[in-house]
């Protein structure tokens, strides 16, 4: 029996971590006598932003983390961020295989699976959003909380006033009015209790979560074919299961928010199209720039876009 160690980027109680832990349970059940995963903890065991290096250097064998935490190393992760597909389709069309190849080339890790996909981001505001004559969102006077992932979109396209804050400070920043709007995934607002201050959700949603499992390549190559098979099969199954589980969770969250008085405001027509296109192209531009600066053998911008973006799915 082989055992590999793992850590996860977020605290144990967070929904995404719970999803990863259920994947671990599935592997440990299927892999009895063959392969076991020994979870060593979350950010308290290895710092959130040090985990990608730790798996690359073999200090830990497996890490569950957003690709954005190592975007400086694998800029192609932005294909996932800007994707309007889920792991289910991109597993089938070979997108994830290409991402795996890029991880191997750039980072010495293998990309086992894209979990919890199909969840996107909304803008959430305290006050009712206003629109200009063309139906575009007006951001004058909006104090928007940002971070490295979405600032290209927020500042470059929306030209909003962005205030960088760590997640832990957002609750009190909303309370004091330091910020009155934030981007966040469709899920989790209630867990963070930001809905105490936020009253409007702006549709459509943009971006996608980019959480994935990466494994040190030496560790991976040292596993028996049987162990590799169990890990890969369980991961592919979990890609599917997690999409469905999180959709259910999203519907529950939205229902709970609706009940508590959250208003939904939709961008329409051309404004909507432009909004979505801007979120995507600012991200793609960033990816292209970094890929051109430092290309990997399998870096292929057009192919990535083709595999991770389906115009008809918008």
């Amino acid at each position, binding site marked *: 029996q082989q055992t590999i160690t793992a850590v996860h980027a977020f605290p144990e109680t967070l929904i995404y971590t719970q999803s990863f832990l259920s994947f671990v349970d599935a592997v440990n059940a299927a892999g009895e006598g063959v392969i076991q995963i020994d979870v060593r903890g979350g950010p*308290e065991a290895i*710092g959130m932003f*040090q985990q990608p290096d730790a798996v690359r250097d*073999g200090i830990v064998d497996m890490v569950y983390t957003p690709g954005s935490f190592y975007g400086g190393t694998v800029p192609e992760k932005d294909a996932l961020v800007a994707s309007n597909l889920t792991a289910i389709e991109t597993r089938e069309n070979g997108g994830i295989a290409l991402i795996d190849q890029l991880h191997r080339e750039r980072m010495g890790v293998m990309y086992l699976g894209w979990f919890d996909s199909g969840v996107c981001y909304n803008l959430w505001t305290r006050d009712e959003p206003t629109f200009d004559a063309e139906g575009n969102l007006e951001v004058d006077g909006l104090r928007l909380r940002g971070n490295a992932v979405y600032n290209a979109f927020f500042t470059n396209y929306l030209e909003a006033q962005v205030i960088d804050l760590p997640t832990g400070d957002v609750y009190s*920043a909303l309370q*004091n009015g330091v910020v009155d709007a934030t981007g966040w995934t469709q899920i989790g607002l209630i867990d963070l209790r930001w809905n*105490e201050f936020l009253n409007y959700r702006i549709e459509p949603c943009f971006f996608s979560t980019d959480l994935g499992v990466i494994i040190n390549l030496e560790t991976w190559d040292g596993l028996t074919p049987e162990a590799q098979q169990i890990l890969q099969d369980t991961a592919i199954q979990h890609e599917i299961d997690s999409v469905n589980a999180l959709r259910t969770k999203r519907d529950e969250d939205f229902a709970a928010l609706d009940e508590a008085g959250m208003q939904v405001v939709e961008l329409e027509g051309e404004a909507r199209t432009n909004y979505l296109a801007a979120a995507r192209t600012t991200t793609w531009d960033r990816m292209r720039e970094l890929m051109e600066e430092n290309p990997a053998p399998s870096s292929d911008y057009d192919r990535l876009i083709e595999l991770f973006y389906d115009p008809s799915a918008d």
Partner: protein
Amino acid sequence: MEWYEALGLLVGSIMLLMALGMPVALAFLAANILGAWVFMGGERGVVQLLNNGWGALTTFALVPIPLFLLMGEVFFQTGLGGRMFSAIDRLLGRLPGRLSYVTVLGGTGFSTLSGSSMGSTALMGSLMVPEMGRRGYKKHMSIGPILGTGGLAIIIPPSALAVLLATLAQIDVGALLIAGVIPGLILAALYVGTIYLQTRLDPEAAPPYDVPPISVGEKIQLLFRDVVPMIGLMVVIVIMMINGIVTPSEAAAFGALGVLILAALYRCLSWRAIRNSVRGALRVTLMAYLIVFGSATFSQLLAFSGASRGLITWATGFELDPVAMLLVMFGVLLILGMFMEQISIMLLTVPIFFPLATQLGFDPIWFGLIMLLALEISFTTPPFGLLLFVMKGVAPSDTTMREIYRAAIPFILCSLLLVALLIMFPVLATWLPGLG
């Protein structure tokens, strides 16, 4: 390796090195090199240690502490602090231990709003300890109340740590914050009682001198010239925080800037004062942050090696009645608190303690409050509480270890008494949130 062997190796090596007199930061680093070698696979573990170090240091949450230190140093070096305390002294007249009460009030106000008990300890320590020493207070009369205010600040809203705990445990943030109000007032009363007792039992502890009586006119003049502007500065900063002009982490910068402007207005801002202030603030910051650099990885090694989780699982594995179980959890928090920083402890214990608390039938809000108290107590518990080191850094150089320990203990006992009261009368915590 079993968890207790890992625990023994890590904790044993750090205690040995510290006892031998190795500087605390270096002892952490040495233990880390050893631990990283054993648990993280040799050389690459040491590299990871360095990666952790810069990761832990480059967080905005650490910005306020040097700035609070700078604020306190400028207050002290320019003589502004001296002016203010002389005035308060004369205004308060004959109340024995008056500056100790002022310390509790000011320190609590400051650390509760800034959300940083380390920053507040740094500010109050550099400001009050030398000033009160100069006025004939024994050191424990200033050091004790300052160390005590951290415990008060963590439960009186707003409290950043309480928000984080509630988020992690997925309990009602508002309820946990409100739950802290009554226990906070009780704790403040216990502190006041402690200071009163200390001045009664040992009248020499606070200066027994009589302040010459002054006329009402002089009092008003003193108040507006030497007190109102300084207190006013603090009030302005508080208003800025409440109105959302600055975040709590940003407030310290305006505190430091405000004192510099005040000192310039009072014409006591010399280059020498600026230089000495920056130098003083830098010394304590460097000392504390190299310890942060070292202890960040030490915390992680305890978690990564399975030592801390082993301890938690073992300690909570006994079949005990609820109160005994609560005391076990409390004890685990205190022990971990000796070696780990507070957020890591929360990440580690919340997923285990809260389900257990539910199972034992505890009210989660009440339990969360007790957890917060345990975390803050461990911050000031001898021998390794980080606040003790910060205090040592800012206190006059002849202050001994024993004096700091002795000063801390009565106030730690107050916190423990509060925990006992909460266990006996849970309604103290649950009544206010229950109204809403």
